[in-house]
Protein backbone atom coordinates (compact mmCIF):
# COMPACT_ATOMS: atom_id res chain seq x y z
CA UNK A 1 0.00 0.00 0.00
CA UNK A 2 1.35 3.44 -0.86
CA UNK A 3 2.06 5.61 2.17
CA UNK A 4 0.80 9.10 1.32
CA UNK A 5 1.45 11.86 3.85
CA UNK A 6 -1.01 14.70 4.47
CA UNK A 7 1.56 17.11 2.97
CA UNK A 8 1.81 15.00 -0.17
CA UNK A 9 -1.99 15.00 -0.55
CA UNK A 10 -1.96 18.78 -0.50
CA UNK A 11 0.36 18.89 -3.48
CA UNK A 12 -2.40 17.36 -5.59
CA UNK A 13 -5.69 18.27 -3.90
CA UNK A 14 -7.15 21.49 -2.48
CA UNK A 15 -8.21 21.77 1.16
CA UNK A 16 -11.82 21.79 -0.02
CA UNK A 17 -11.36 18.59 -2.02
CA UNK A 18 -9.80 16.90 1.00
CA UNK A 19 -12.79 17.68 3.25
CA UNK A 20 -14.50 14.34 3.92
CA UNK A 21 -12.27 12.76 1.28
CA UNK A 22 -11.89 9.03 1.83
CA UNK A 23 -11.28 7.36 -1.50
CA UNK A 24 -7.83 5.82 -1.89
CA UNK A 25 -8.33 4.69 -5.49
CA UNK A 26 -8.92 8.29 -6.54
CA UNK A 27 -6.06 9.50 -4.32
CA UNK A 28 -3.53 7.17 -5.96
CA UNK A 29 -4.94 7.71 -9.46
CA UNK A 30 -4.78 11.49 -9.27
CA UNK A 31 -1.20 11.43 -7.95
CA UNK A 32 0.00 9.02 -10.65
CA UNK A 33 -1.93 10.81 -13.39
CA UNK A 34 -0.68 14.29 -12.53
CA UNK A 35 2.87 12.97 -12.10
CA UNK A 36 2.74 11.43 -15.60
CA UNK A 37 1.45 14.70 -16.99
CA UNK A 38 4.23 16.62 -15.26
CA UNK A 39 6.85 14.14 -16.49
CA UNK A 40 5.54 14.68 -20.03
CA UNK A 41 6.19 18.41 -19.65
CA UNK A 42 2.54 19.38 -19.60
CA UNK A 43 1.72 22.10 -17.12
CA UNK A 44 -1.95 22.52 -16.33
CA UNK A 45 -1.53 24.51 -13.15
CA UNK A 46 -2.40 27.76 -14.91
CA UNK A 47 -6.13 27.27 -15.29
CA UNK A 48 -7.09 28.13 -18.86
CA UNK A 49 -10.70 29.06 -19.36
CA UNK A 50 -11.20 26.70 -22.27
CA UNK A 51 -10.62 22.96 -22.02
CA UNK A 52 -7.81 21.33 -24.00
CA UNK A 53 -9.92 19.62 -26.69
CA UNK A 54 -7.10 17.35 -27.81
CA UNK A 55 -6.38 15.98 -24.32
CA UNK A 56 -8.35 13.06 -22.86
CA UNK A 57 -8.25 10.51 -20.05
CA UNK A 58 -8.79 6.76 -19.92
CA UNK A 59 -8.24 5.59 -16.37
CA UNK A 60 -9.26 2.11 -15.33
CA UNK A 61 -10.30 0.91 -11.91
CA UNK A 62 -12.11 -1.88 -10.14
CA UNK A 63 -13.59 0.39 -7.50
CA UNK A 64 -12.94 4.02 -6.59
CA UNK A 65 -13.30 4.23 -2.84
CA UNK A 66 -14.71 1.34 -0.86
CA UNK A 67 -14.10 3.10 2.49
CA UNK A 68 -16.15 6.08 1.33
CA UNK A 69 -18.86 3.73 0.12
CA UNK A 70 -18.90 1.96 3.49
CA UNK A 71 -19.17 5.32 5.27
CA UNK A 72 -22.13 6.23 3.04
CA UNK A 73 -23.89 2.92 3.64
CA UNK A 74 -23.67 3.37 7.40
CA UNK A 75 -25.12 6.89 7.16
CA UNK A 76 -27.90 5.74 4.85
CA UNK A 77 -28.84 2.84 7.08
CA UNK A 78 -29.05 5.33 9.96
CA UNK A 79 -31.54 7.37 7.94
CA UNK A 80 -29.01 10.18 7.43
CA UNK A 81 -29.25 10.54 3.64
CA UNK A 82 -28.76 14.30 3.73
CA UNK A 83 -25.55 13.96 5.77
CA UNK A 84 -23.81 12.34 2.79
CA UNK A 85 -22.84 15.80 1.54
CA UNK A 86 -22.04 16.74 -2.02
CA UNK A 87 -18.98 14.58 -2.69
CA UNK A 88 -20.16 11.04 -1.95
CA UNK A 89 -21.20 10.41 -5.56
CA UNK A 90 -17.96 11.72 -7.03
CA UNK A 91 -15.89 9.68 -4.62
CA UNK A 92 -17.77 6.41 -5.04
CA UNK A 93 -18.69 6.35 -8.72
CA UNK A 94 -16.44 4.15 -10.85
CA UNK A 95 -15.46 7.07 -13.06
CA UNK A 96 -14.55 9.20 -10.06
CA UNK A 97 -10.84 8.91 -10.84
CA UNK A 98 -11.11 10.03 -14.46
CA UNK A 99 -13.54 12.77 -13.42
CA UNK A 100 -11.15 14.18 -10.81
CA UNK A 101 -8.25 13.99 -13.26
CA UNK A 102 -10.23 15.44 -16.17
CA UNK A 103 -11.14 18.47 -14.08
CA UNK A 104 -7.64 19.07 -12.78
CA UNK A 105 -6.21 18.81 -16.31
CA UNK A 106 -8.97 20.66 -18.13
CA UNK A 107 -9.26 17.69 -20.49
CA UNK A 108 -11.72 18.33 -23.32
CA UNK A 109 -11.45 15.03 -25.17
CA UNK A 110 -12.87 11.67 -24.05
CA UNK A 111 -12.71 11.32 -20.25
CA UNK A 112 -13.67 7.83 -19.15
CA UNK A 113 -13.04 4.92 -16.83
CA UNK A 114 -12.69 1.37 -18.09
CA UNK A 115 -13.04 -1.73 -15.98
CA UNK A 116 -11.84 -5.19 -16.91
CA UNK A 117 -10.50 -6.45 -13.60
CA UNK A 118 -6.73 -7.04 -13.67
CA UNK A 119 -6.58 -6.22 -17.40
CA UNK A 120 -7.87 -2.65 -16.79
CA UNK A 121 -4.51 -0.87 -16.83
CA UNK A 122 -3.25 -2.45 -20.04
CA UNK A 123 -6.67 -2.03 -21.63
CA UNK A 124 -6.65 1.68 -20.72
CA UNK A 125 -3.38 2.20 -22.61
CA UNK A 126 -4.80 0.47 -25.68
CA UNK A 127 -8.03 2.46 -25.51
CA UNK A 128 -6.10 5.72 -25.34
CA UNK A 129 -3.85 4.54 -28.16
CA UNK A 130 -6.90 3.87 -30.39
CA UNK A 131 -8.26 7.34 -29.69
CA UNK A 132 -4.99 8.89 -30.90
CA UNK A 133 -4.35 6.42 -33.75
CA UNK A 134 -7.80 7.14 -35.19
CA UNK A 135 -7.08 10.86 -35.08
CA UNK A 136 -9.68 11.67 -32.45
CA UNK A 137 -7.24 12.92 -29.82
CA UNK A 138 -3.71 14.30 -29.64
CA UNK A 139 -2.83 13.33 -26.08
CA UNK A 140 -4.42 10.74 -23.78
CA UNK A 141 -3.55 10.21 -20.14
CA UNK A 142 -3.87 6.46 -19.64
CA UNK A 143 -3.57 4.49 -16.46
CA UNK A 144 -5.40 2.66 -13.75
CA UNK A 145 -5.73 2.66 -10.00
CA UNK A 146 -6.64 0.25 -7.25
CA UNK A 147 -8.16 0.88 -3.86
CA UNK A 148 -7.03 -1.12 -0.85
CA UNK A 149 -8.10 -2.64 2.42
CA UNK A 150 -10.08 -5.59 3.71
CA UNK A 151 -13.28 -4.67 1.87
CA UNK A 152 -11.48 -4.86 -1.48
CA UNK A 153 -9.35 -7.89 -0.73
CA UNK A 154 -11.55 -10.02 1.53
CA UNK A 155 -13.29 -11.70 -1.39
CA UNK A 156 -9.97 -12.89 -2.83
CA UNK A 157 -8.97 -14.24 0.56
CA UNK A 158 -12.27 -16.12 0.72
CA UNK A 159 -11.43 -17.71 -2.64
CA UNK A 160 -8.06 -18.82 -1.21
CA UNK A 161 -6.15 -17.22 -4.08
CA UNK A 162 -4.07 -15.04 -1.74
CA UNK A 163 -1.15 -16.64 0.07
CA UNK A 164 -1.28 -17.32 3.80
CA UNK A 165 2.00 -19.21 4.06
CA UNK A 166 4.35 -16.28 4.56
CA UNK A 167 2.72 -14.16 7.22
CA UNK A 168 5.96 -14.32 9.24
CA UNK A 169 8.13 -13.50 6.21
CA UNK A 170 6.12 -10.94 4.24
CA UNK A 171 8.93 -9.83 1.90
CA UNK A 172 9.18 -13.38 0.60
CA UNK A 173 5.46 -13.93 0.20
CA UNK A 174 4.94 -12.80 -3.40
CA UNK A 175 6.72 -15.49 -5.45
CA UNK A 176 5.82 -15.40 -9.16
CA UNK A 177 7.20 -18.36 -11.16
CA UNK A 178 8.56 -19.99 -8.00
CA UNK A 179 8.06 -23.65 -7.12
CA UNK A 180 6.89 -22.50 -3.69
CA UNK A 181 4.44 -19.86 -4.96
CA UNK A 182 1.25 -20.21 -2.98
CA UNK A 183 -1.04 -17.40 -4.06
CA UNK A 184 -0.83 -13.70 -4.72
CA UNK A 185 -0.22 -10.83 -2.33
CA UNK A 186 -2.76 -8.05 -2.82
CA UNK A 187 -1.44 -4.57 -3.44
CA UNK A 188 -2.74 -1.15 -4.43
CA UNK A 189 -1.66 2.08 -6.05
CA UNK A 190 -1.78 3.51 -9.53
CA UNK A 191 0.27 3.91 -12.67
CA UNK A 192 -0.10 6.29 -15.59
CA UNK A 193 1.47 7.18 -18.91
CA UNK A 194 0.85 10.08 -21.24
CA UNK A 195 0.28 8.86 -24.80
CA UNK A 196 0.65 11.34 -27.59
CA UNK A 197 0.78 11.38 -31.37
CA UNK A 198 4.37 10.90 -32.49
CA UNK A 199 4.40 14.15 -34.46
CA UNK A 200 3.23 16.08 -31.45
CA UNK A 201 5.74 14.47 -29.08
CA UNK A 202 8.62 15.16 -31.49
CA UNK A 203 7.47 18.75 -32.00
CA UNK A 204 7.35 19.32 -28.24
CA UNK A 205 10.83 17.82 -27.84
CA UNK A 206 9.92 15.77 -24.78
CA UNK A 207 11.35 12.43 -23.61
CA UNK A 208 9.75 9.60 -25.57
CA UNK A 209 9.98 6.45 -23.50
CA UNK A 210 8.56 4.25 -26.23
CA UNK A 211 6.25 4.03 -29.18
CA UNK A 212 3.06 1.99 -28.82
CA UNK A 213 3.23 -0.24 -31.90
CA UNK A 214 -0.17 -1.80 -31.29
CA UNK A 215 -1.91 -4.45 -29.29
CA UNK A 216 -4.98 -6.55 -28.82
CA UNK A 217 -7.84 -6.92 -26.35
CA UNK A 218 -10.00 -10.04 -26.33
CA UNK A 219 -11.90 -12.47 -24.16
CA UNK A 220 -11.95 -16.23 -23.84
CA UNK A 221 -15.73 -16.11 -23.52
CA UNK A 222 -15.46 -18.41 -20.50
CA UNK A 223 -15.31 -21.31 -22.97
CA UNK A 224 -12.60 -23.90 -23.73
CA UNK A 225 -11.58 -24.16 -20.07
CA UNK A 226 -11.99 -20.45 -19.39
CA UNK A 227 -14.27 -19.31 -16.57
CA UNK A 228 -14.91 -16.32 -14.33
CA UNK A 229 -11.56 -17.00 -12.67
CA UNK A 230 -9.55 -19.13 -15.12
CA UNK A 231 -8.21 -18.10 -18.52
CA UNK A 232 -9.08 -19.75 -21.81
CA UNK A 233 -5.50 -20.44 -22.97
CA UNK A 234 -6.47 -20.37 -26.63
CA UNK A 235 -7.79 -16.83 -26.16
CA UNK A 236 -4.62 -15.78 -24.30
CA UNK A 237 -2.44 -17.04 -27.15
CA UNK A 238 -4.71 -15.43 -29.74
CA UNK A 239 -4.49 -12.12 -27.88
CA UNK A 240 -0.67 -12.17 -27.91
CA UNK A 241 -0.44 -13.36 -31.54
CA UNK A 242 -2.89 -10.71 -32.75
CA UNK A 243 -1.12 -8.00 -30.72
CA UNK A 244 2.08 -8.89 -32.61
CA UNK A 245 0.26 -8.92 -35.96
CA UNK A 246 -1.43 -5.61 -35.20
CA UNK A 247 2.00 -4.17 -34.38
CA UNK A 248 3.70 -5.61 -37.43
CA UNK A 249 6.23 -7.34 -35.20
CA UNK A 250 7.65 -10.86 -35.58
CA UNK A 251 7.74 -12.95 -32.39
CA UNK A 252 11.54 -13.25 -32.58
CA UNK A 253 11.82 -9.47 -32.28
CA UNK A 254 10.48 -9.49 -28.72
CA UNK A 255 13.40 -8.87 -26.34
CA UNK A 256 11.50 -8.85 -23.10
CA UNK A 257 8.11 -9.85 -21.70
CA UNK A 258 6.50 -8.15 -18.73
CA UNK A 259 4.25 -10.96 -17.54
CA UNK A 260 0.97 -10.99 -15.68
CA UNK A 261 2.39 -13.77 -13.43
CA UNK A 262 0.58 -13.39 -10.13
CA UNK A 263 2.24 -16.21 -8.14
CA UNK A 264 -0.70 -18.57 -8.26
CA UNK A 265 -0.85 -22.09 -9.71
CA UNK A 266 -1.59 -20.49 -13.09
CA UNK A 267 1.95 -19.12 -13.64
CA UNK A 268 3.18 -22.23 -15.52
CA UNK A 269 0.08 -22.03 -17.74
CA UNK A 270 0.90 -18.41 -18.58
CA UNK A 271 4.48 -19.34 -19.53
CA UNK A 272 3.13 -22.16 -21.69
CA UNK A 273 0.87 -19.68 -23.45
CA UNK A 274 3.70 -17.22 -24.08
CA UNK A 275 5.82 -20.07 -25.50
CA UNK A 276 3.01 -21.15 -27.81
CA UNK A 277 2.08 -17.61 -28.93
CA UNK A 278 5.70 -16.55 -29.59
CA UNK A 279 6.71 -20.02 -30.79
CA UNK A 280 9.83 -19.64 -28.69
CA UNK A 281 11.08 -21.80 -25.83
CA UNK A 282 14.20 -22.79 -23.91
CA UNK A 283 17.12 -20.42 -24.38
CA UNK A 284 15.32 -18.80 -27.34
CA UNK A 285 12.66 -17.35 -25.03
CA UNK A 286 12.89 -13.58 -24.31
CA UNK A 287 13.70 -12.25 -20.84
CA UNK A 288 10.67 -12.28 -18.57
CA UNK A 289 9.86 -10.94 -15.12
CA UNK A 290 6.97 -10.01 -12.88
CA UNK A 291 6.79 -6.80 -10.86
CA UNK A 292 4.29 -8.47 -8.53
CA UNK A 293 7.17 -10.04 -6.55
CA UNK A 294 8.15 -6.52 -5.48
CA UNK A 295 4.87 -4.64 -5.09
CA UNK A 296 2.21 -7.34 -4.96
CA UNK A 297 -0.78 -7.68 -7.24
CA UNK A 298 -2.39 -4.28 -7.66
CA UNK A 299 -5.47 -5.85 -9.32
CA UNK A 300 -7.00 -3.13 -11.54
CA UNK A 301 -3.87 -1.02 -10.94
CA UNK A 302 -1.46 -3.81 -11.84
CA UNK A 303 -1.38 -3.38 -15.63
CA UNK A 304 -0.50 0.30 -15.58
CA UNK A 305 1.99 0.06 -12.70
CA UNK A 306 3.72 -2.78 -14.56
CA UNK A 307 3.68 -0.86 -17.85
CA UNK A 308 5.51 1.98 -16.10
CA UNK A 309 8.12 -0.55 -14.92
CA UNK A 310 8.37 -2.05 -18.42
CA UNK A 311 8.91 1.35 -20.02
CA UNK A 312 11.60 2.28 -17.51
CA UNK A 313 13.45 -0.96 -18.28
CA UNK A 314 13.13 -0.30 -22.02
CA UNK A 315 14.32 3.27 -21.62
CA UNK A 316 17.28 2.43 -19.37
CA UNK A 317 18.17 -0.98 -20.90
CA UNK A 318 17.86 -3.26 -17.91
CA UNK A 319 15.77 -6.16 -16.67
CA UNK A 320 14.84 -6.03 -13.01
CA UNK A 321 15.40 -9.17 -10.93
CA UNK A 322 12.68 -11.70 -10.18
CA UNK A 323 13.07 -11.60 -6.42
CA UNK A 324 11.69 -14.59 -4.53
CA UNK A 325 12.20 -16.86 -7.54
CA UNK A 326 15.38 -18.61 -6.44
CA UNK A 327 13.46 -21.88 -6.94
CA UNK A 328 12.01 -21.67 -10.44
CA UNK A 329 8.88 -23.79 -10.81
CA UNK A 330 9.93 -27.11 -12.44
CA UNK A 331 7.17 -26.92 -15.04
CA UNK A 332 8.40 -23.45 -16.02
CA UNK A 333 12.05 -24.60 -16.07
CA UNK A 334 11.03 -27.32 -18.52
CA UNK A 335 9.57 -24.72 -20.88
CA UNK A 336 12.12 -21.91 -20.76
CA UNK A 337 15.74 -21.55 -19.77
CA UNK A 338 15.85 -20.25 -16.15
CA UNK A 339 18.52 -17.80 -17.36
CA UNK A 340 15.65 -15.97 -19.05
CA UNK A 341 14.12 -15.39 -15.61
CA UNK A 342 16.86 -13.14 -14.19
CA UNK A 343 17.33 -13.39 -10.44
CA UNK A 344 19.74 -10.45 -10.50
CA UNK A 345 19.40 -7.18 -12.33
CA UNK A 346 20.63 -7.48 -15.90
CA UNK A 347 21.90 -4.69 -18.07
CA UNK A 348 20.90 -5.62 -21.61
CA UNK A 349 19.84 -3.56 -24.63
CA UNK A 350 16.07 -3.77 -25.11
CA UNK A 351 14.25 -2.63 -28.22
CA UNK A 352 10.87 -4.32 -28.55
CA UNK A 353 8.87 -5.53 -25.58
CA UNK A 354 5.50 -7.08 -24.81
CA UNK A 355 3.21 -6.55 -21.84
CA UNK A 356 0.08 -8.56 -21.18
CA UNK A 357 -2.53 -8.54 -18.44
CA UNK A 358 -5.26 -11.08 -17.83
CA UNK A 359 -8.34 -10.53 -15.70
CA UNK A 360 -11.30 -12.16 -14.00
CA UNK A 361 -14.10 -12.66 -16.46
CA UNK A 362 -11.61 -14.31 -18.87
CA UNK A 363 -10.41 -11.02 -20.39
CA UNK A 364 -7.00 -10.34 -21.92
CA UNK A 365 -4.99 -7.35 -23.10
CA UNK A 366 -1.55 -7.27 -24.72
CA UNK A 367 0.43 -4.22 -25.84
CA UNK A 368 3.71 -4.01 -27.79
CA UNK A 369 6.18 -1.16 -27.20
CA UNK A 370 9.31 -0.21 -29.13
CA UNK A 371 12.12 2.14 -28.31
CA UNK A 372 12.63 4.98 -30.80
Amino acid at each position, binding site marked *: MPDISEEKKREYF*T*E*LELRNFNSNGILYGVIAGLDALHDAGIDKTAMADEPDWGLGVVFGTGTSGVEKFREAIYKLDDGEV*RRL*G*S*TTVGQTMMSGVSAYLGGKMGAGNQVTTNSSACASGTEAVLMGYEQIATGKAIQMLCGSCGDDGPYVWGGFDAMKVTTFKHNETPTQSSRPMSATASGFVPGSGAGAVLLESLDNAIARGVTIYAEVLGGNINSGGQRQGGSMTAPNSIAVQKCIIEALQNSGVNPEEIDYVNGHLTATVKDPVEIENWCAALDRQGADFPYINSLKAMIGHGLAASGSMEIVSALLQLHHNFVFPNINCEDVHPEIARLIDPQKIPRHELNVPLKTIAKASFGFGDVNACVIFRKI
Partner: protein
Amino acid sequence: MTKEDIYAQLKSIIKIYLPEDVSVDDIGPESHLINELNINSSHLIDVVLDLEDAFDIEIKDDELEAMDTVSSALEIIQKKINN
Protein backbone atom coordinates in the same frame (compact mmCIF):
# COMPACT_ATOMS: atom_id res chain seq x y z
CA MET B 1 -24.89 34.41 20.93
CA THR B 2 -24.79 37.90 19.38
CA LYS B 3 -25.47 38.59 15.73
CA GLU B 4 -21.79 39.51 15.34
CA ASP B 5 -20.71 36.14 16.76
CA ILE B 6 -23.00 34.28 14.37
CA TYR B 7 -21.78 36.35 11.44
CA ALA B 8 -18.14 35.65 12.28
CA GLN B 9 -18.74 31.93 12.52
CA LEU B 10 -20.85 31.90 9.35
CA LYS B 11 -18.06 33.69 7.53
CA SER B 12 -15.47 31.18 8.70
CA ILE B 13 -17.62 28.33 7.34
CA ILE B 14 -18.30 30.02 3.99
CA LYS B 15 -14.59 30.74 3.63
CA ILE B 16 -13.84 27.02 3.21
CA TYR B 17 -15.98 26.81 0.08
CA LEU B 18 -14.71 29.89 -1.73
CA PRO B 19 -13.03 29.20 -5.08
CA GLU B 20 -9.37 30.19 -5.33
CA ASP B 21 -10.08 33.51 -7.02
CA VAL B 22 -12.44 34.78 -4.31
CA SER B 23 -10.98 36.11 -1.07
CA VAL B 24 -12.49 36.01 2.39
CA ASP B 25 -12.56 39.83 2.31
CA ASP B 26 -15.10 39.63 -0.51
CA ILE B 27 -17.66 38.20 1.91
CA GLY B 28 -20.16 40.89 2.87
CA PRO B 29 -23.61 40.69 4.46
CA GLU B 30 -25.35 41.11 1.12
CA SER B 31 -23.06 38.80 -0.90
CA HIS B 32 -24.93 36.30 -3.04
CA LEU B 33 -23.44 32.87 -2.25
CA ILE B 34 -23.50 31.48 -5.78
CA ASN B 35 -23.59 34.53 -8.06
CA GLU B 36 -21.10 36.74 -6.22
CA LEU B 37 -18.98 34.45 -4.08
CA ASN B 38 -18.94 31.84 -6.87
CA ILE B 39 -19.57 28.96 -4.48
CA ASN B 40 -20.29 25.79 -6.44
CA SER B 41 -24.05 25.22 -6.05
CA SER B 42 -23.52 21.60 -5.00
CA HIS B 43 -21.35 22.83 -2.12
CA LEU B 44 -24.29 24.73 -0.63
CA ILE B 45 -25.38 21.35 0.71
CA ASP B 46 -22.06 21.06 2.53
CA VAL B 47 -22.32 24.64 3.86
CA VAL B 48 -25.71 23.75 5.34
CA LEU B 49 -24.32 20.58 6.97
CA ASP B 50 -21.47 22.59 8.50
CA LEU B 51 -23.92 25.22 9.80
CA GLU B 52 -26.10 22.52 11.32
CA ASP B 53 -23.11 21.09 13.16
CA ALA B 54 -21.76 24.48 14.26
CA PHE B 55 -25.05 25.87 15.57
CA ASP B 56 -26.74 22.60 16.50
CA ILE B 57 -29.75 23.35 14.31
CA GLU B 58 -31.54 21.68 11.41
CA ILE B 59 -32.13 23.51 8.16
CA LYS B 60 -34.99 22.16 6.08
CA ASP B 61 -34.91 21.80 2.31
CA ASP B 62 -37.34 24.68 1.68
CA GLU B 63 -35.26 26.92 3.97
CA LEU B 64 -32.19 25.97 1.99
CA GLU B 65 -33.92 27.25 -1.15
CA ALA B 66 -34.40 30.65 0.47
CA MET B 67 -30.80 30.81 1.64
CA ASP B 68 -29.19 32.64 -1.24
CA THR B 69 -27.23 35.45 0.43
CA VAL B 70 -25.05 35.69 3.52
CA SER B 71 -27.70 37.76 5.29
CA SER B 72 -30.49 35.28 4.50
CA ALA B 73 -28.34 32.51 5.99
CA LEU B 74 -27.74 34.67 9.03
CA GLU B 75 -31.45 35.27 9.43
CA ILE B 76 -32.29 31.58 9.26
CA ILE B 77 -29.64 30.70 11.84
CA GLN B 78 -30.79 33.48 14.20
CA LYS B 79 -34.40 32.35 13.96
CA LYS B 80 -33.40 28.72 14.68
CA ILE B 81 -31.19 29.57 17.65
CA ASN B 82 -33.83 31.79 19.22
CA ASN B 83 -36.46 29.06 18.99
